[in-house]
């Protein structure tokens, strides 16, 4: 390696590292720092309060509520798109007429931004003339004007449905690729050995799709952790905090109630939770590695 090469290598590495440092490492460090203060977000004067913010978290009813919602959100945002995507992939993988067309249709929502998806579903959920209530009215013949997004017991799940609608196409495409990669002779062994369709799915197809599932779940986890924008558009965490997640709660505390110190403490906890989830995930990955290399 000559001198000039080394300079180039350093320079080319430095640029992305600087961006990463500026937009990831620095804010992260700042969050840790401010989580020990009572900063309000703009006043240059603030005090160190030790672990007071973290103490407050323990007694914050809204934090508990947001944690539960985050758990629901994450589990649903992983399970629903994964299961639906797998189901669609299994259906479309059989060379049905029109399969190509439906592949494109189901994939389309992933190309839309969360803002547009959110707006589409706000219209669908609109109480008076929204698609959902209109269909319900015609099917049941009864009057339906349920305000899906404005009722505490349906708000979170209504957003989860919209979210799954968008994410399913991605899982489907990954699973379709995975299905293509299953060697035909393994399926023929199933036929010769007398596996029922269910046994073939359970004992051969699903295990062989493990590498695809790894990718799908990883993307779902990452996307669901990032899935703040669609909630923000559709409910903003309301009504009455019923669709509040930790990210939403942190945002409200920091930027709506100007409790930057407390908001930072929430973000630190959120960060730790994310680390645990990802850590657990990587441990599972190592098992997959032994078999699929």
């Amino acid at each position, binding site marked *: 390696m000559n001198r000039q090469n080394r300079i180039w290598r350093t320079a080319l590495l430095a640029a992305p590292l600087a961006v990463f440092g500026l937009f990831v490492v620095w804010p992260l460090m700042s969050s840790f720092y401010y989580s020990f203060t009572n900063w309000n977000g703009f006043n240059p004067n603030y005090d160190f309060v030790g672990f007071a913010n973290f103490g407050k978290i323990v007694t914050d009813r809204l934090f508990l509520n947001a944690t539960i919602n985050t758990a629901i959100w994450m589990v649903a945002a992983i399970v629903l798109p994964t299961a639906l995507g797998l189901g669609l992939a299994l259906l479309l993988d059989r060379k049905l007429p029109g399969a190509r067309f439906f592949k494109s249709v189901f994939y389309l929502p992933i190309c839309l931004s969360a803002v547009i998806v959110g707006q589409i579903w706000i219209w669908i959920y609109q109480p008076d003339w929204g698609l959902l209530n209109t269909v319900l009215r015609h099917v049941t013949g009864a009057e339906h004007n349920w305000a899906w997004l404005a009722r505490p017991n349906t708000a979170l799940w209504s957003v989860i449905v919209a979210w799954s609608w968008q994410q399913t196409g991605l899982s489907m495409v990954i699973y379709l690729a995975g299905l293509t990669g299953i*060697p035909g*002779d*393994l399926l*023929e*062994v199933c*036929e*010769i*050995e*007398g*596996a*029922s369709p269910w*046994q073939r799915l359970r*004992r*051969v197809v699903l*295990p*062989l799709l*493990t590498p695809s599932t790894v990718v799908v779940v990883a993307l779902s986890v990452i996307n669901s952790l990032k899935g703040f924008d669609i909630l923000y558009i559709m409910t903003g965490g309301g009504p009455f905090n019923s669709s509040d997640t930790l990210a939403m709660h942190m945002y409200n505390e920091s930027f709506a109630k100007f409790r930057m110190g407390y908001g930072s403490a929430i973000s630190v906890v959120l960060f730790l939770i994310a680390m645990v989830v990802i850590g657990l995930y990587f441990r599972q990955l190592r098992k997959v590695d*032994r*078999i*699929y*290399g």
Partner: protein
Amino acid sequence: MAELTLDRLRKSFGSQEVIKGLDLTIADGEFVVFVGPSGCGKSTTLRMIAGLEDVTSGAVRLAGQDVTRTRPAGRGIAMVFQSYALFPHLSVADNIGFGLSLQRLPRAEIAARVRAVAETLQLGPLLERFPRELSGGQRQRVAIGRSIIRDPRVFLFDEPLSNLDAALRVQMRLEIARLHRRLRATMIYVTHDQVEAMTLADRIVVFNEGRIEQVGSPMALYERPANRFVAGFIGAPAMNFLAPGCALLAGLAVPAGAREAGIRPEHLALVAPGDGAGGSVELIERLGPETFAHLRLPDLPDTVTLRLPGDSGVEPGTAVALRALPDRVQWFDAAGRALAATRG
């Protein structure tokens, strides 16, 4: 009893007919080898017997029963693939016991039968491993283990050894021969390897372009091929084909209608100059126990292959004279059919 009969079996993919009417009866316990050039329909035939491929017309009968429309699992056949087709996510034990576990047999019974099969295939110490932790030969033994554990009536092998190196191939060939002797099951075996075909087969079936050219014992095909195609296909190196008027055949009585003569490399001999057709050595292949010399003769378009002892000192460029053993020359008519009385 698991006698297998193919009755006017045909198969088309779209408008292309690839199997053009096969009639074949395979006796219970017989070891039959399918050979033929690439694309002639050996695998397709095997897959129709297994039920993996629909039959376009004709019938497959197993032990007197028409199984043409029976699902693969209902036929009592086992198949061993060239690719081994092992489940990568299952251990060796689970791969071998796969079929039994589908039938929900008691765990203990499956384990016992898996262990018994593994012992006979020397897989005992490997039961807990995954396929990717095995060598090619071990993988193929696992695939064979999976096929024998259900006591199938017919075994189908589609080029099972062609992914193995030469030494392993010889070893596995012996194991398959031993397996057949022990199980006495009907076996159909597809191979491109002449030695496998000759050594394993009770009977060889020679395919060509979706048809059977000839069926017979290895030595019958070798010594009395029915036509030019079989004569050229069986035997390595291949038979030499000569025009009837060439110097090498001088003095031989040409049967009526003969258009071509065939002589195997081992039925040619070097003689003193002047006693036979003259030529020069173009290329020498030394295999150890034997040597093949490729000779250029002035009146023949192709080189002639001649087998010599391993210690033959012939070098490329040497001028030689050779003769054909007269009673070993085979004659073919214009349609390529072997003419009778080629050999008394």
